[in-house]
């Protein structure tokens, strides 16, 4: 009986699978599928994991998820799922799921040195509020902070952004997405004047050349990888290039594999640009009509603290590079300076400033990047001959330049988590723009993302310390005024001072300038580099840390208060993926125990405060802006009263349950019988997710960021829509008249982004005419030089360490590692090392070793084979495993422009444990 049922289920699943793949299904198997699923309720949803944004179908039965499948109608994944997708239905049911608020108590009272004890929501909010008021009274808006997330739903991010910026008047809210794609954003802003890619995933099927720069897509974006391998196998002329610092799974199908040294991607791209010019292959009509040339300062530091006050003794020599850099031979040539020159880093305060230059200047900038120079600098595998490497670089340039070829460049963390992340992103556009291969089907530089809503929530909603919704910026008075208008709050409520970025919030906790911090949907103490500092700051300083979590990870462990969160399908939500596709889903199952959606937590906390607590004058040290008294936010209460507010109004009433929003009623027919635990718990008859959507839609309307109505995303036939959605139609390729209604009629291509489109003029060495000159409608082609990594292997720390993900685990593993058997059975993270490097240290496979940097050390097992083939001199350790807490070892340098951390390069030593 058991066996036959099993066979029955198998043939049913085989039938569904064959249907997706396009193979014929037998009538018997189809009947089995129908019988098995007869009591199930299927609904569409989005995968919880990476930035690809695969559609999935979820089957529920009696309040539980019983099956999931790739959504055959989803254009992203066409019915397929990767192994992480397999966990979507399981992650909610782990053994140590948090289901009750937990607080550190001693003798029944909060105590930082106490043990976690279950408490009620009421007790949790009471202490949270008490601690918040204490800090806010002493330190004002600068003293509190929020670690947000690229895994927040759009609605959650929107609400918290509003609570912090409009309610608390604090811009100390920054997402973990800072460490994932801030460099991509900075380059989108500087090059195009608007965030997010021009193209979409269909570029894969339109192109004949795909170049992967620091993106191991075979492991990190498997579904897109399937589309790439399908394209490659079906088209003999198609070529795939994998640029990487060690041999990985993406090399398996690559026609060309280029292994380079860390940071030398900067030089390789300039080599390609130099070749484009030398071969007279610049697409002159495209460049003259659509582009200008630009550059900026080189001496911008490495995003570390300017002082060594907090550095451990061993760290001081690396930290010193923030102040002064002695040029090595390569940097000297690359930057047209002298070897050994000591360069003071004078532009750390404003590293993003840039100016227009001439084509002749640009040409002079890339002139040193000859094949000989770049090959010698960049060759990453000591066992490869220089001639072979040169030949590979030449082939790469050939592929880009061939006028008959379409080219798509893909990248993720290799570019973004980079001490010159913004530069290297800009360089990728540089080559596509020089060739005119941009914003057309099958042609374009395509920045992929790592998190499911890094685009949809972090970027589009603007949950960063310097952003507001839909490409608006905190320092821009007009953008603040527009936001205050949409939010119906008094002028000058918003704080004009940019808040602390992610790394800085951690540094603020260390030096005591932030004393109250809340974390939602991310795990800062596990995932931020140089973790020993931040763990000590959290546990040993006088501060209060709240972590909203579903499972106990490292951040929950260092917290003072843990709030149990509802997980993805236990709430309504929406994500935006890497191709501008916005997708929404309904609550499928109820959250367990006392777990509650993050949105509910935010709204309940807002009920505890009144307008008079924040909208009076506030001290903000360092605030300096037109129309504001120095160091002060004005009292806006009188203006608020004119708008109909009372000082006694709660933030919940003033910002969220507004008269307009209360008109958006729950229950709503769009739910089709699905519940909404947040609307039910609030109990005042409104539908917060839908109300926030309507509010949020206003920000992008008519601004190139138009979104469709809430119900449209929930319609049966819709599988997400790529914004801007204009007159009900999505936009496939931005900036291209054929597809994008925002382009002026007859313009063909128009880079209409509005930010940073008036800049000074100068040459490679600096500004010559400070008067801003307009470049409306155009993109910038940047010259950016090679810069050496801040820390490189030396006699004491003689190996490079690179970190990242592995296929079957995701980020810090708090979800994928909680499925009980998996937690036990999957081996802990290993360190991949070249067999010769292992042998030289007397090590063999499976040996336990210490891996140690200037900052810390962890124990890990040696792996000399398997999926990653290291080059001599480099080791790789994934970061998912809290048992191999590799971020104790990593270096917290950032791209100085984007403030995104570089996890890909620091110096370590390895020895037997």
């Amino acid at each position, binding site marked *: 009986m058991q066996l036959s049922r*099993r066979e029955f*289920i*198998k*043939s049913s*699943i*085989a039938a*569904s*699978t*064959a249907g*997706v*793949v*396009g*193979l*014929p299904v037998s009538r018997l198997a189809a009947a089995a599928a129908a019988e098995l699923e007869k009591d199930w309720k299927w609904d569409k949803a989005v995968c919880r994991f990476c930035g690809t944004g695969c559609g999935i179908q979820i089957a529920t*039965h009696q309040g*539980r998820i019983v*099956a*999931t*499948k*790739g959504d055959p109608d989803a254009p992203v994944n066409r*019915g*397929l*799922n*990767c*192994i992480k*997708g*397999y966990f979507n*239905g*399981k992650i909610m*049911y782990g*053994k*140590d*799921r948090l*289901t009750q608020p*937990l607080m550190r108590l001693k003798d029944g009272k909060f105590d930082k040195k106490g*043990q*976690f004890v*279950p408490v*009620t929501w009421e007790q949790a909010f009471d202490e949270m509020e008490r601690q918040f008021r204490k800090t806010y009274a002493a330190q004002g808006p600068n003293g509190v902070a929020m670690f947000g997330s690229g895994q927040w739903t759009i609605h959650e991010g929107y609400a918290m952004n509003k609570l912090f910026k409009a309610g608390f008047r604090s811009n100390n809210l920054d997402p973990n997405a800072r460490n994932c794609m801030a460099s991509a954003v900075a380059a989108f802003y500087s090059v195009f004047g608007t965030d997010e890619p021009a193209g979409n995933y269909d570029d894969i099927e339109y192109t004949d050349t795909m170049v992967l720069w620091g993106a191991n897509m075979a492991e990190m974006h*498997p579904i897109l*990888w*399937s589309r790439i*391998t*399908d394209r490659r*196998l079906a088209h003999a002329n198609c070529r795939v290039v994998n640029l990487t610092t060690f041999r990985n799974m993406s090399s*398996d199908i690559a026609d060309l594999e280029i292994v380079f040294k860390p940071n030398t991607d900067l030089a390789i791209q300039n080599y390609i640009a130099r070749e484009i010019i030398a071969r007279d292959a610049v697409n002159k009509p495209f460049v003259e009509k659509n582009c200008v040339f630009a550059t900026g300062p080189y001496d911008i530091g490495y995003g570390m603290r300017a002082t060594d006050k907090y550095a451990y003794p061993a760290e001081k020599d690396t930290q010193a590079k923030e102040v002064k850099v002695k040029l090595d031979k390569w940097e000297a040539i690359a930057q047209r300076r002298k070897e050994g020159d000591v360069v003071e880093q004078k532009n750390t305060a404003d590293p993003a400033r840039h100016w227009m230059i001439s084509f002749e200047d640009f040409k002079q900038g890339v002139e040193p990047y000859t094949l000989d120079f770049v090959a010698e600098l960049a060759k990453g595998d000591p066992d490869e001959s220089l001639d072979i490497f040169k030949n590979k670089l030449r082939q790469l340039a050939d592929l880009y330049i061939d006028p008959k070829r379409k080219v798509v460049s893909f990248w993720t963390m290799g570019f973004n988590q980079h001490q010159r992340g913004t530069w290297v992103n800009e360089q990728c556009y540089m080559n596509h723009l020089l060739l005119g291969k941009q914003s057309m089907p099958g042609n374009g530089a395509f920045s992929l993302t790592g998190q499911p809503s890094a685009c949809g929530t972090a970027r589009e909603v603007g949950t960063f310390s310097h952003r507001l919704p839909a490409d608006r910026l905190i320092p821009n008075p007009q953008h603040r005024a527009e936001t205050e208008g949409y939010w119906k709050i008094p002028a000058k409520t918003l704080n004009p001072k940019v808040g602390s970025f992610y790394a800085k919030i951690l540094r603020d906790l260390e030096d005591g300038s932030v004393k109250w911090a809340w974390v939602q949907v991310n795990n800062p103490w596990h995932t931020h580099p140089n973790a020993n500092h931040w763990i000590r700051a959290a546990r040993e300083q006088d501060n209060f840390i709240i972590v909203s979590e579903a499972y*106990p990870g490292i951040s*929950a*462990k260092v917290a003072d208060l*843990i709030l149990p969160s509802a997980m993805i399908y236990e709430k309504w939500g929406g994500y935006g993926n890497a191709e501008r596709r916005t997708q929404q889903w309904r609550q499928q199952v109820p959250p*367990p*125990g*006392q777990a509650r959606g993050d949105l509910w937590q935010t709204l309940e906390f807002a009920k505890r405060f009144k307008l008079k607590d924040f909208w009076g004058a506030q001290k903000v040290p360092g605030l300096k802006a037109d129309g504001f008294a120095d160091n002060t936010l004005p009292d806006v209460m009188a203006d608020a009263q004119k708008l109909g507010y009372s000082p006694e109004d709660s933030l919940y009433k003033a910002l969220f349950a507004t008269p307009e929003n209360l008109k958006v009623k729950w229950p709503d027919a769009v739910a089709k019988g699905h519940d909404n635990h947040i609307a039910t718990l609030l109990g005042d008859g409104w539908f917060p997710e839908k109300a926030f959507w309507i509010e949020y839609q206003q920000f992008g309307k008519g601004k190139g960021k138009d979104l469709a109505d809430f119900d449209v995303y929930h319609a049966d036939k819709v599988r997400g829509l790529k914004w801007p959605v204009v007159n009900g139609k999505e936009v496939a390729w931005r900036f291209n008249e054929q597809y994008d209604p925002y382009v002026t009629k007859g313009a063909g291509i128009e880079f209409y982004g509005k930010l940073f489109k008036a800049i000074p003029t100068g040459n490679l060495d600096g500004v010559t005419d400070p008067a801003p000159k307009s470049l409306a409608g155009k993109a910038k082609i940047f010259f950016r030089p090679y810069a050496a990594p801040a820390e490189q292997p030396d006699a004491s720390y003689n190996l490079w360490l690179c970190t990242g993900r592995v296929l*079957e685990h995701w980020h810090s593993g708090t979800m994928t590692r909680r*499925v*009980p*058997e*998996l937690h036990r*059975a*999957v081996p802990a993270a290993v360190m991949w090392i070249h067999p010769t490097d292992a042998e030289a240290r007397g090590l063999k496979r499976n040996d336990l070793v210490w891996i140690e940097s200037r900052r810390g050390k962890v124990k890990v097992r040696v792996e000399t084979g398997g999926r990653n083939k290291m080059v001599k001199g480099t080791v790789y350790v994934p970061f998912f495993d809290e048992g191999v807490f590799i971020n104790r070892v990593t270096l917290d340098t950032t791209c100085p422009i984007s403030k995104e951390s570089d996890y890909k390069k620091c110096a370590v030593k390895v020895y037997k444990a």
Partner: protein
Amino acid sequence: MNISGISVSTRPEWVESVAQSLSAIKGVEVHAADVRAGKLVVTLEAPTVSAEVEGFKRIRALPHVVAADLVQHYFEEDGEIIHAIPDDLDTLEGVSVPDALKDH
């Protein structure tokens, strides 16, 4: 019981050989193959989640397999996971603090 439906891709000339190596993996059954498209449809059955993941990794690591993608996952009878969460969690008494959160 965990059962997954998986689509496996290979070059057309390897379909037959990949089908043979797939069948040799414990818990794997080949249900359909299309030589021209280089696609195979298999099911993978495993008693635990980790065995399921291991089996999937083994499929992916087979010679000539260029991609393996999951299509459907069924886990109705995965009682250990589904029932790991106690039914009554609304009172503080039912809650235990996970070991990971205890200071040792």
